[in-house]
């Protein structure tokens, strides 16, 4: 028989407000096995923990039930307390009487009754608990960073700086991401390339960092400390180790009409290309959809002009398998498609552009060499209208947009407006907004400068229609402060399109078994206290893949993710979770049901010799669980038709005892 202590927490008024904690402690004292019962204001505090430790010693407790908040919050805390008092930490059970009880009920009698029932269930379980000892697994001291934008770059640099090896996998031919496409950065207006490209060079020169550019992660197996990852290096038809990046091929390639995605297809590039001058790695890539040599075997100009002999038309996709201890997701964002927003005539007029396109139009390395010219006729626009919140903060029933605020648009629009007025004082600039949100450091000052010093017209109201008329755009909008309908003429309309996670994020989340929200942003382990960790152990989040972010925030999060990775890689061994599945070999008939449902590939089979009662021997196939890979999800225990599979710490017997206690 166990000697169980029950500890009921008030959690200030969080629990005590709707649960009579004294009554709960009294009622639970009468349960079988319970020898001690107490209540305290904050059980997680030092004094509360001391109360538990003292009770363990004084009453020779063998099991503990803490009636408090969710086990996600403080299970680890109380397990440590138990261990400090000399108890096996897995003899602790949490009855969640806060999230699932006091927070959802309003009346004291109901809350109290439910808290007692939940406490009884936990006591019934502890009665059947057995001490568990976690296993250990080694840590592969190398990290993988998926995505080579500013988030991935910063994370990789910080991890490498601590002396660990890092690989960056970037699906584009160069690292740099969205920041490489930007002109200037708010609120300081320093040039994006000037602050980004030195970091890109640092990455290239760092001995600890390997870059797999033009590559994608295709398979992830294993678990924290021991991930097995398969990376596809897409054929770029250029030998990376030979190419010097001289660019001769990109000048001589006769195929000139390839849409240039780096400039958002506002100009063209060659079929063999280097995305931009400061690309890292500075290696050419052939676009197989446009290369005549690859399509029909005619041409070969690039291979003739390449003095390094780097062109290889026969190159194939290559797969690399590597082991990692930690994985950082830094897959970033994209502006949403404007296809469903025809009221702004994006598809009808070349002079309706997105803010990222505007960014390229004002960038010295962009399609107009930095001169702000209308895409339709190359004329200087005299009147520009900016529209904020296009596709952001949409009504839930408006199926074409996003419900969330994209966060960065207010500031970059203020930047665009200010820079336009600064460089072209003759240009009239109007911004339509729902709200102007400028909570960052020096952000509001920046926005006010745009209004007060640069004379940008800010109008509160949304644009309802943009109508191309001749070579002008008629913008129909409302001015909410003046309660007026407006119709103004513009030469250029710039849409601050909402941002969304990159399309590669969803399949990657499946591979990593990392959770996402309804918008496909990765979910953090705790929104406040663990903001850079995914709930999946060993997977960390960096940058806009977790939610819309500007550059300073992204860099801060990238550094935080790196420090978490460093903390993990600094350990030689990881303590595993002892709550893993195991199979009773006498009952297992080797049917493979468990193997089929295991999401982690933790189950294998072996042939084992059994001595039968009649002294003959029999060889039977039985399931074996690898405890280092098993995550204790319990799928196999449900799938097993003969009841041979069971989960330590959550045995079927224990679960049934809980159910019985609740139904009693």
């Amino acid at each position, binding site marked *: 028989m166990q000697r169980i202590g029950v500890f009921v927490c008030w959690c200030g008024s969080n629990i005590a407000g709707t649960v009579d904690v004294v009554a709960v402690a009294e009622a639970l004292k009468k349960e079988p096995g319970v020898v001690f019962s107490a209540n305290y204001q904050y059980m997680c505090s030092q004094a509360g923990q001391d109360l538990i430790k003292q009770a363990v010693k004084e009453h020779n407790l063998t099991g503990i039930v803490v009636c408090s908040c969710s086990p996600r919050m403080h299970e680890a805390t109380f397990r440590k307390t138990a261990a400090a008092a000399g108890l096996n930490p897995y003899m602790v059970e949490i009855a969640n009487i806060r999230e699932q009880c006091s927070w959802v009920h309003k009346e004291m009698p109901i809350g109290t009754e439910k808290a007692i029932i939940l406490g009884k269930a936990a006591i019934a379980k502890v009665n059947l608990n057995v001490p568990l000892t976690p296993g250990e697994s080694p840590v592969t001291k190398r990290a993988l960073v998926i995505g080579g934008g500013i988030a991935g770059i910063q994370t990789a640099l910080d991890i490498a700086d601590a002396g660990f090896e890092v690989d960056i996998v970037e699906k584009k031919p160069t690292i740099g991401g969205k920041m490489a496409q930007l002109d200037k950065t708010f609120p300081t207006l320093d040039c994006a390339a000037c602050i980004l490209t030195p970091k890109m060079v640092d990455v290239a020169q760092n001995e600890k960092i390997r870059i797999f550019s033009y590559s994608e992660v295709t398979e992830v197996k294993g678990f924290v400390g021991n991930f097995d990852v398969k990376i596809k290096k897409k054929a770029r038809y250029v030998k990376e180790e030979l190419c010097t990046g001289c660019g001769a091929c990109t000048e001589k390639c006769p195929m000139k009409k390839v849409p240039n995605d780096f400039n958002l297809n506002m100009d063209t590039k060659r079929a063999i290309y280097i995305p931009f001058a400061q690309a890292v790695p500075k290696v050419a890539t052939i676009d197989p959809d446009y290369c005549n040599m690859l399509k029909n075997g005619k041409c070969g100009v690039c291979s003739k002009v390449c003095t390094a002999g780097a062109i290889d038309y026969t190159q194939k996709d290559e797969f690399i398998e590597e082991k990692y201890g930690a994985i950082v997701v830094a897959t970033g964002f994209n502006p949403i498609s404007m296809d*469903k*927003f*025809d*009221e702004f*005539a994006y*598809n*009808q007029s070349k002079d309706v552009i997105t803010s990222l396109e505007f960014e390229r139009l004002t960038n010295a390395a962009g399609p107009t060499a930095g001169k702000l010219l209308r895409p339709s006729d190359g004329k200087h626009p005299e009147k520009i209208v900016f529209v904020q919140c296009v596709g952001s903060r949409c009504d839930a*029933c408006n*199926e074409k947009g996003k419900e969330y605020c994209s966060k960065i648009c207010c500031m970059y629009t203020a930047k665009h407006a200010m820079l336009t007025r600064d460089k072209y004082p003759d240009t009239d600039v109007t911004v339509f907004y729902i709200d102007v949100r400028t909570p960052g450091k020096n952000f509001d000052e920046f926005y006010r400068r745009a209004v007060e010093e640069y004379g940008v017209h800010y109008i509160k109201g949304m644009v309802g*229609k*943009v*109508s*191309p*008329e001749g070579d002008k755009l*008629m913008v129909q909008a409302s001015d909410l402060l003046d309660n007026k309908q407006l119709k103004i003429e513009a030469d250029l309309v710039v849409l601050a399109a909402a941002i969304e996670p990159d399309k590669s994020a969803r399949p990657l989340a499946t591979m990593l078994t990392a959770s996402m929200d309804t918008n496909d942003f990765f979910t953090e382990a705790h929104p406040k206290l663990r903001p850079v960790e995914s709930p999946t152990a060993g997977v960390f989040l960096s940058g806009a893949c977790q939610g819309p972010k500007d550059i300073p925030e992204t860099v801060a999060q990238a550094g935080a993710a790196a420090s978490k990775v460093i903390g993990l890689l600094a350990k030689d061994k990881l303590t595993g979770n002892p709550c893993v599945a195991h199979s009773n070999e006498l009952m297992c008939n080797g049917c493979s049901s468990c193997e089929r449902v295991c999401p982690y590939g933790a189950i294998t089979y072996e042939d084992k010799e059994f001595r039968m009662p009649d002294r003959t021997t029999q060889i039977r196939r039985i399931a074996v669980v690898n405890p280092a890979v098993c995550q204790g999800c319990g799928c196999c225990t449900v799938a097993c038709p003969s009841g041979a599979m069971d989960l330590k710490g959550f045995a079927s017997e224990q679960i049934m005892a809980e159910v019985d206690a609740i139904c009693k």
Partner: protein
Amino acid sequence: MKFSYFPGCTLKNKAKDLDIYARKCAEVLGVTLEEIENWQCCGGVFTTAKDEVATKLSSVRILKDAQKNNLDLVTVCSACHNVVKQTNYAMQNDAEFASKVNRYMAEDEYNGETKIYHYLELIRDVIGYDKVKECVVNPLAGKKIAAYYGCLLLRPNSVMRMDDPENPTIIEDLIKALGATPVVYSYRNECCGGYVRMESPELAVKKSNTVIESAKKAGAEVIVTACPLCKYNLEKSGCDIPVVYLTELLAEALGVKEDTNE
């Protein structure tokens, strides 16, 4: 193929051409429109008031009658279509509304089972533009026609589900099938002024003129609409190019239009 058909009040008075040619053309295209017996008004725009049940009952009865006939329902007037379809949507998705309505329906309980086609959807989804092309005897070649959608035909998109409300093509595709050239202009899905004409005629004229000017600038010779109120407003605002119902246009191409006032 047979469908239940609801013309609506205006189509028996001001907009007879919309109704007559809808039936005639349907026959040519191999579809019989069977008018619902003893129908009443769809309820008009008043049904868009959310808390009203009584004003939506006549729409529900129309839908129920179609269900009794075991036929899908076809409408042609933009406003009627909007009202009937929104009512049906509410019957399917708003349990409280449906239960209130059914208290008036006696033994005729209805729960949104009827499928509704606008005449344009009937052509696109059931008959097909290829069939229309085959039946054209009098191609409208060379004619530049501006489709005027107005606001009720396509919105709200979550209910109407007819076409992209900001960049529709359903009428343009029909115009092409008739051999004419569709004129695409940006105000084709804007409001004509609607019933604002009663209270503030100048505003309605302003709204209508924006549409007319936009269509004319794009080179339109004719404006085609499915809505009696749109036609009224455009004409009353001094539109100097013809405004015709889409069924008239169809009848002309299919060779069933009578020379009435031309």
